[in-house]
């Protein structure tokens, strides 16, 4: 049933850009039902930058896709609410979602977005196409170029880039151009999925600088960055959520989580990282024992218990409650209410 309450724009009392409550999304197909995201709640306030970290297959990208309201084929919304500036993404007509929410209020830059540019069109022609779809008016490529030139310059990208074909740009430049194009309508919320994973070290730094510039320059209000690279997220985000097997294990301020992790999974994840520091050479770094569970048959109780060194009987049978303390939350039996 379609809920028409989208008309009333909810007052931004708490100045929340994104509110997700108990979101569930499963993959359904011949392989069975995969519990990709299973009951996740998060709020993103204005001027906040949230990082989402975890192993591959833990549901980070699934979560990002569910927020956009148009998930990939096979992924189904199963319950919960997603509100972007008061718009309930899953209960508004698709046309409203496309016209009012996407691009204007929320932009999503998927993984490997740099490959989404049309190889036989110059960037300005691509942008003209996009503007026509968004605004319903026709623009010539040169008009589009003029419209975006300022925006590109604010982000330290040359105007010249718009005259080039994608193959003339380097990987880092393409990725930056895609992010610049997707933020051209000043969305409130920008979701970037693995922005640096296919780039090398020096372009990674440029990428991070650009994302910080976008936020500081007031082009966007809030940002969600999905990545497995914790060191990169550390540079970019104020708050971090650690995800495992479709659920949040721990969330809190970046500095606090990194310096004093509560959840055993966060501790193991941080211990398995390879920072460039002098002491790691003679250390025998440990990987997390076992493997990520098959989310078709997730383990009962706490999903991390088969790999957890501090597992108790309680962990095996019951889902741990979410403990909130000092602005941090953790979902573990070691930290009872």
């Amino acid at each position, binding site marked *: 049933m379609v809920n028409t309450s989208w008309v009333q724009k909810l007052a931004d009392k708490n100045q929340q850009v994104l509110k997700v409550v108990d979101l569930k999304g499963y993959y359904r197909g011949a392989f069975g039902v995969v519990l990709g995201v299973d009951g996740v709640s998060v709020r993103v306030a204005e001027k906040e930058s949230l990082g989402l970290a975890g192993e591959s297959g833990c549901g980070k990208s699934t979560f990002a896709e569910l927020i956009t309201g148009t998930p990939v084929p096979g992924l189904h919304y199963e319950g919960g609410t997603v509100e972007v500036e008061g718009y309930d993404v899953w209960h508004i007509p698709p046309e409203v979602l496309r016209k009012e929410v996407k691009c204007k209020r929320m932009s999503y830059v998927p993984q490997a977005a740099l490959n989404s540019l049309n190889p036989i069109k110059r960037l300005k022609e691509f942008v003209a196409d996009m503007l026509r779809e968004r605004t319903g008016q026709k623009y010539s490529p040169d008009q589009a170029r003029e419209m975006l030139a300022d925006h590109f310059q604010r982000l330290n990208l040359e105007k010249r880039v718009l005259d080039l074909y994608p193959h003339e740009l380097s*990987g880092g430049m393409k990725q930056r151009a895609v992010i610049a194009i997707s933020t051209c309508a000043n969305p409130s919320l920008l979701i970037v999925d693995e922005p640096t994973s296919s780039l090398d070290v020096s372009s*990674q730094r440029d990428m991070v600088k650009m994302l910080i510039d976008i936020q500081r320059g007031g082009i966007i209000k809030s940002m969600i960055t999905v990545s497995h690279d914790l060191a990169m997220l550390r540079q970019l985000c104020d708050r971090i959520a650690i995800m495992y097997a479709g659920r949040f294990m721990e969330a809190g301020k970046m500095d606090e989580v990194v310096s004093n992790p509560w959840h055993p999974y966060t501790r193991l994840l941080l211990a398995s990282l390879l*920072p460039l520091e002098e002491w790691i050479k003679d250390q025998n770094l440990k990987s997390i024992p076992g493997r990520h569970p098959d989310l078709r048959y997730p383990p009962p109780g706490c999903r991390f218990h088969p790999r957890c060194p501090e597992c108790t009987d309680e962990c095996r049978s019951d889902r741990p409650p979410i403990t909130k303390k000092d602005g941090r939350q953790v979902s573990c039996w070691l930290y009872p209410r």
Partner: protein
Amino acid sequence: MNKTGVVLEVDNITRYYTLGYIFTRQVLGAENVSFNLHRGEILSLVGESGSGKSTVANMILRLIKPTSGKIYLDDRDAYSYSEVDYWRRVQVVFQDPYSTFNYFYTVDKPLMDAFNLIEKASWGKERFSQAERREIIMATLEKMGMNPDEILGRYPHQTSGGQMQRLLIARSLIIGPHLLVADEPTSMTDASTRVAILNELLRLRQEKGMAVLFITHDVAQAYYISDKTAVMKDGRIVETGAPKKVFFEPEHSYTKKLIASVPKLHEKWDFSQ
């Protein structure tokens, strides 16, 4: 294997790529690259994309020919070996495990086929029955910390990237090469699996005395794993030496810039200026 223990000697190799058909132009792939690799040593080649790391690797693997310069494997010119003989001695783990496996066969096939290479290279002196092959595969996989019952008989799409990478390392372990070229073996895996693969390479080096040429753009990985490091920039090696020296007291300006752009977990970059 010779007495000095040098497995691979790369002597001043240069490679130019030629583009175009009539109006050709030349692009530099790698220039005047020289290094030695001893038995049981791990050398890491570090550099950004386009710096010629993979060009060097492909030349060592005999996939492309150097424009000038020589490569010696076990004191013999690399091109004096027959192909089978050469690949018995040099094996590779590529960057993208997804494109290495044939999706129509189970993962057993590349492991089984590894024995064919051994049989061919030894002119049929070494022969393995199916049962023997299976036994060796099982033992190798267990050594690699994988459960053979869980992994054998699966198709590539049913395994994870980290597992595929480890299967490829297991495959080269069966062949038992003198030199393993690892071309960004951890780029498709996440943090936890990454450490497992690196530890695996370290262990192999210790147990089998295999020389490893480790190619990466990740400075921290290069520091963790290697005994010797070479930093590449625009096709040339700009700095080489012990990892501690190269990464913590860099001399070349490019190395300094590279180190500065590595994100650190306990330190935040300052973009305020």
